[in-house]
């Protein structure tokens, strides 16, 4: 069959599938469709409250490494407020700044910020320095020559914790960038590829700095969307580490253009093979799936093609035991609910049933002898 025939079939099918949606209802009918009427002010208040609670509570809860040394409630993340400006703990950068990178002392924590996620403690104090997970007296210092309205470092003994303001410009630093590392979106640190051509690096950084600012909405993410972490290695010895959603053109809070997607995809395509983790393999009809250290799995490089529902054998080296298998994205059950993970491990340690969801699926395994490992299955329709 020719391409034209295929195109005609696709068009006809789309026509039929969407035919019952026309004629579209008039706009007034849409606006009145079973929606309680509210005053505009109330709607704005509700929307603003949702945005504020999500941005505050969500960021607090989602910060990695958010648990303090037993001094605040576990449901809270880490935040510091300096005269009303809030900073959240930056999980990506905690290992990218050490004592030698620190600049001037800008302030000290005055008081603890009680944070139990249930009371009125979400109000940001406008005066003084409060912190949810740092003891009073903790030094807050600038990082290199960066403006302190973007990032600050809290120094507690030998430990340096980095805090980032959600409203600061992450790319306002004056140092040059000499390398761009493309890291795993899983942990932000496993290196997948590197861009080190000076001309290209300079062009990408320039493009980034002039890119429009556009905060990202979480509901824009598809399950298929690819996310990596971009690490800008700077001439001042510091690194700026930010998430990049390639399919959304979104690098941190900037909408970058095609130059970034092309460069990153090219770099990923020519990136080195991922390291292999020993101890476990899965065997299917089409071959053997090798595992990698968690973070090194790539959806664009599936380890094995399997069919929906195919039963795979799990082979473990002597002395290795599986504590769990985790499938991401988790396929739905017939009732639409997410099943518990063990349902994919039909006989623990023996076989694994390939998920029903067609596409690439990351399978993570917890092993007794090593850190968690992962493999990528390309699930195709059962014939």
């Amino acid at each position: 069959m020719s391409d034209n025939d295929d195109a005609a079939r696709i068009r006809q099918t789309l026509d039929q599938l969407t035919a019952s949606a026309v004629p579209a209802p008039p706009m007034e009918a849409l606006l009145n469709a079973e929606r309680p009427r509210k005053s505009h002010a109330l709607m704005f208040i509700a929307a603003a409250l949702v945005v504020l609670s999500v941005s505050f509570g969500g960021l607090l809860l989602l910060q990695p490494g958010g648990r303090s040394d037993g001094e605040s409630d576990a449901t809270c993340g880490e935040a510091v407020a300096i005269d009303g400006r809030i900073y959240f703990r930056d999980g990506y950068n905690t290992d990218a700044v050490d004592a030698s990178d620190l600049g001037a002392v800008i302030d000290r924590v005055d008081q603890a910020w009680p944070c139990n996620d249930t009371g009125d403690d979400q109000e940001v104090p406008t005066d003084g320095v409060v912190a949810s997970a740092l003891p009073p007296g903790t030094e807050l210092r600038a990082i290199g020559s960066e403006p302190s309205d973007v990032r600050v470092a809290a120094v507690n003994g030998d430990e340096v914790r980095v805090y980032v303001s959600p409203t600061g410009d992450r790319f306002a630093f004056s140092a040059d960038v000499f390398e761009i590392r493309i890291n795993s979106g899983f942990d932000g640190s496993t290196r997948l590829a590197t861009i080190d051509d000076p001309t290209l690096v300079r062009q990408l950084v320039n493009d980034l700095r002039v890119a429009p600012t556009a905060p990202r909405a979480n509901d824009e993410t598809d399950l298929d969307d690819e996310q990596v972490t971009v690490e800008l290695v700077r001439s001042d010895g510091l690194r700026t580490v930010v998430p990049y959603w390639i399919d959304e053109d979104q690098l941190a809070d900037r909408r970058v253009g095609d130059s970034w997607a092309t460069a990153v995809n090219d770099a990923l395509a020519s990136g080195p093979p991922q390291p292999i983790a020993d101890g476990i393999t899965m065997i299917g009809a089409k071959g053997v799936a090798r595992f990698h250290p968690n973070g090194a799995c790539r959806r664009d490089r599936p380890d094995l093609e399997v069919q929906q529902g195919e039963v795979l054998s799990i082979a473990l080296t002597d002395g290795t035991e599986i504590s769990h298998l985790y499938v991401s994205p988790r396929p739905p059950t017939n009732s639409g609910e997410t099943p518990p993970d063990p349902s994919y491990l039909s006989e623990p340690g023996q076989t694994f049933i390939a998920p029903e969801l067609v596409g690439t699926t990351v399978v993570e395994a917890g092993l007794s002898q090593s850190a968690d490992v992962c493999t990528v299955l390309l699930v195709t329709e059962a014939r």
Partner: protein
Amino acid sequence: MSERADRLRSAAAGPWLSFLSECVIRLSSRWDHEGVRRKEQVEACYEEHADALSRFAAALVGSNDAQDVLSVAVLNVLRTGSEIDNVPAYLYRSVHRAALHHWRATRRRGRRERVVWEPTPADDHTVDPRIVDALGAMSPRQRAVVHLSYWEDLTTATIAERLGVSVGTVKRHRTRAHAKLKEALANE
């Protein structure tokens, strides 16, 4: 307006609430001044593109949910506080965003896709079940690109404008979608 503003200001007990009330005052004020003009502008555009928008919504979430998504999208456009340069593109983008939200909010991808694509009449020979299955296995973005390129016959640049993404992103989604369609159509 000023009385409402005073009431809100005096009710503000803390910095967050104060900030919140200022937002409400500003947004309400914008609404008062621009709301009528915006509604007329959107209404005229909707009348012109209603069927195409409705089909687009149906392609993304299925006919059953298309009206809900369309309704949310139109409301969102009416509520937007910023100036809209290209209303048709903005409406498409809003439908696309509402569909993504709908898709993620339910988190029942497999079941919804079955519901979306099952109502095909069995004896309708213009519907190719292989294409139906392939569409069902696509992400909403891939489906959007397929619909806009095959059904609406739009260029890559126009699709990028309608979805608010770059040309490269449209090409990437189209490549993935084409691969799925090609594989499906190769099966006799």
